[in-house]
């Protein structure tokens, strides 16, 4: 059996509230990171507030439709980002959102490795039929990464988001289970 939490460059883990909150509070200050990934206005939260959220989640346990991972590099064991899944168990569809907070790890294949690891988790552990995601048209780096991982562009909601006075499209992508299986060297390993 495959190691679900180990890719070629990164591994999935879950940070303790203390270090998780510290990293998130620092990444929040980088407004470009947020604007590449989110739709809502940039927001700054105190480290204390973020830690309380994480702790509360830990106490209650995550809801059954949420899966979240912290991402660490294999080489230096550095915490560089996170990845979250929202799962619709009825229709067997998952949505993914991810962020690399540490900018020096952009454009070096870490994102692609995160997405591949996530696909493996979604299709071979969660047994989903479909994996979906959304992105901004002004994020071509993400688009290239998702295309490389086998996602299909399924359309765009026109002029969906207003940033810096400009209207931009939101892109919608998806990959089906059978499409992912076909990419696995001709079959499931």
């Amino acid at each position, binding site marked *: 059996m495959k190691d679900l939490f180990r890719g070629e460059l990164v591994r999935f883990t879950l940070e303790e509230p203390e270090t998780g909150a510290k990293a998130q509070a620092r990444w929040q200050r980088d407004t470009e990171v947020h604007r590449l990934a989110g*739709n*809502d*206005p940039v927001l700054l939260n105190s480290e204390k507030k973020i830690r309380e959220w994480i702790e509360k989640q830990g106490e209650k346990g995550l809801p059954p439709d949420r899966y979240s991972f912290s991402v660490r590099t294999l080489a230096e064991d550095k915490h560089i980002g996170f990845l979250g899944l929202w799962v*619709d168990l*009825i*229709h*067997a*569809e998952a949505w993914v959102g991810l962020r690399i907070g540490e900018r020096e790890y952009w454009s070096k294949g870490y994102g692609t490795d995160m997405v591949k690891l996530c696909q493996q988790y979604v299709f071979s552990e969660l047994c989903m*039929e*479909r994996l*979906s995601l959304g992105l901004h048209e002004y994020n071509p780096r993400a688009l290239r990464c998702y295309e490389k991982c086998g996602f*299909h562009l*399924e*359309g*765009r*909601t*026109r*002029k*969906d*988001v*207003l940033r810096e006075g400009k*209207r931009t499209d939101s892109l*919608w992508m*998806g990959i*089906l289970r059978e499409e992912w299986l076909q990419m696995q060297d001709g079959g499931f390993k």
Partner: protein
Amino acid sequence: MTATVHSPVAVFFATPWAKPVAFYFAEKLGGKMLDIQTQLFESQDLRLGPIDHEKDPEIESKWTHDSEFMRLMDTNPARPLSAAMIKKQYEKLEKQVEENKNLFHFMIRTKADDRLIGKAAIHWIEWTNGNAFLRLGIGSAEDRRKGYGTQALQMLLRFAFAELNLFRVSAIVPEYNKGAIALLHRFGFVQEVCRRRALERDGRRWDLYIFGLLRDEWQDKSRTREER
């Protein structure tokens, strides 16, 4: 009260300077009057209104016993709900409207006999981006194919664009809801996204469409051609 006492409105129109005042405002608006006379919550046969906590739960409960309706309206599993459960849902909904500020919810009633026939909502509003999603449903089969959906959507769009000042609205529709697809096309909605095989029903998978309409593309059908 004697016959010589006028209401303030009557006094306004009776006074000789009333007309110049109206012209003054018309000039300020580039020769066009600001159209606040059109009632946003009324169409030819229908009225949008708030929840009636006494009468509505029983009627909406009946709709939930119609699995076809539920499957057209929602991707969540269809299940029959009691009037008591619907009542609780209404309370939750009103609390959500009050707290989240990104949701507007309406009951659709006939003007003639004040009968509940459906419901509508503008939800997931992103105020900074000026976008939102629409929901609209006519509850019982005998009220469908009577143009009620058209009238309700007309009011909903006018509310979204002329009152909430949204820039665009979206609607999510499964490929098997042919009625909704035809209605959206008639209003100029564009099919923007096809989320392939995103739904599973009756042992097969179905596509889920996202339709979009921009404010520039919206044609306000509640006004006559000259007024537009």
